[in-house]
């Protein structure tokens, strides 16, 4: 049993190394194929990375969205404080700030240049206000429900949330995400076809060898194995190139992106693939390469029989 496992592992090693050897034998042709695969994988990987960066950025923006609660005129400062405590314990809120009627008037006075007009009024026409920052990660639907519940509170006259831009942004992100997946799917199919066609040619070139191996008693698995490894290596080589392309692109964009980030006062804009991302790209590339060679092997190997 142990001998069989050892010989099985050796068979795989031989096929893997043999496949790699044939790739390096026709170096230029293999490099071209790997580059085609690399570009096809780099494009969706780059888009997805960009999308990911945008998502974390807009996540920051959503965190800065505000709900303004205008309280009834007769609600005093003390009552407002109690209300703030109540809201803090009952809702997903990151921060809450009380703007008293006086403070609101003062702010209005500064911003509006209507000093004289305001002086004519007997009393302060502005209500006290609570400004709350929802906890980060609160979705638009949840925010809307929060607003309805807050508005139902007796001390609250009106609750206001500018939801529209959040919703629009979410819709745009949804559309982009779907578009990127669509592009990724199409390019994935093209990788399978490119590898499949390359392996088909490899099978055609080694037809005589396959026939002889079958005559001598090679199993289908034995004949299939080197071609499958060849596809796997193509995928991995393409994946490695894709990672290199994406990271190079990011390096080229890093300086202007950092400037933009500094201007907006946010943290770094372009985050890289990271270990998880690199593993995912390589895994997807290897999987596509293997799928391509399976297609070719399944279609063309059975047709070659000794005559």
């Amino acid at each position, binding site marked *: 049993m142990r001998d069989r496992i050892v010989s099985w592992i050796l068979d795989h090693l031989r096929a893997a190394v043999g496949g790699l050897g044939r790739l390096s034998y026709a170096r230029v042709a293999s490099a071209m194929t790997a580059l085609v695969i690399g570009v096809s994988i780099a494009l969706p990987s780059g888009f997805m990375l960009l999308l990911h960066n945008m998502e974390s950025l807009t996540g920051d923006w959503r965190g800065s969205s505000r709900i303004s609660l205008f309280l009834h005129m007769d609600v005093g400062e003390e009552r407002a404080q109690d209300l703030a405590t109540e809201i803090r314990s009952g809702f997903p809120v990151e921060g809450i700030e009380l703007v008293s009627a006086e403070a609101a008037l003062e702010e209005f006075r500064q911003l509006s240049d209507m000093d004289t007009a305001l002086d004519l009024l007997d009393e302060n026409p502005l209500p006290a206000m609570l400004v709350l920052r929802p906890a980060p990660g609160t979705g638009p639907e949840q925010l809307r429900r929060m607003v309805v519940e807050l508005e139902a509170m007796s001390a609250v006259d009106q609750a206001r949330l500018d939801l529209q831009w959040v919703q629009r942004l979410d819709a745009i992100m949804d559309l982009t995400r779907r578009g990127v997946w669509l592009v990724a799917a199409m390019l994935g199919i093209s990788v399978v076809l490119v590898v499949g066609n390359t392996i088909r040619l490899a099978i055609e070139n080694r037809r005589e060898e396959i026939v002889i191996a079958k005559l*001598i008693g090679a199993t289908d698995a034995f004949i299939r194995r080197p071609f499958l490894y060849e596809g796997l290596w193509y995928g991995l080589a393409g994946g490695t190139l894709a990672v290199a392309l994406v990271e190079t692109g990011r390096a080229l964009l890093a300086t202007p992106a950092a400037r933009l980030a500094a201007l907006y006062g946010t943290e770094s804009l372009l985050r890289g693939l990271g270990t998880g991302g690199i593993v995912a790209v390589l895994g997807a590339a290897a999987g596509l390469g293997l799928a391509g060679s399976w297609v070719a092997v399944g279609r063309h190997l059975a047709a070659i029989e000794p005559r």
Partner: protein
Amino acid sequence: MLPALPGPREMIRFQGVSKRYPGGHDALRRLDFQVGRGELVFLTGHSGAGKSTVLRLIPLLERPTSGRITVAGVDLDRVGRRRIPVLRRRIGMIFQDHRLLPDRSVFDNVALPLVINGVSARDIPRRVRAALDKVGLLNRERASPVTLSGGEQQRVGIARAVVTRPPILLADEPTGNLDPELSAEIMGLFQQFNQVGVTTLIASHDLTLIRRLRHRCLTLEQGALTDDLSSGSRA
């Protein structure tokens, strides 16, 4: 008359085997014969008489249209597609056109069956050299087959066929392209392998050579057996 051999002693057995190719050509018509364990048998007849077809049916390169073939007691009808490789590993095949891989060295060509059989890498060089030694090509292991003469190429083919020590050897016109002297040499090799117990079936139309070697000889004509001369019956 067929020689009456007891069951377990027979290696190859054809019972009423017919082979009809698409288009209606009958390559074999109800062929009956058997080859005993350790026998060397020649198969002769004009080209198109069905010699090659007989040799192709044994390793299941083709299946008969009707009839039954048993190899080492195994009914080939019972050997499914997936088990064909196991059958072929027990049969050494030698072809008129050698069928060597031109882009591999002599050593690699002979090593191929061992690799397919999963022989450990440690044992491969020793066994390849033993096989090359038997056919007298030990000093050519690094050569490319295309640089060898026809006779040498055929001997590489024989080394490849025997390297796994199969119990059965099948040779289709192994001396077809060789001059009489080389042909006799090749046949001598087959006799040597036969002497250590390998059942050997050789298709050949070189009647002069066959007569001289004094082995059993089956004659085919239009897919039917017309003659079965045992080794002693020719004086």
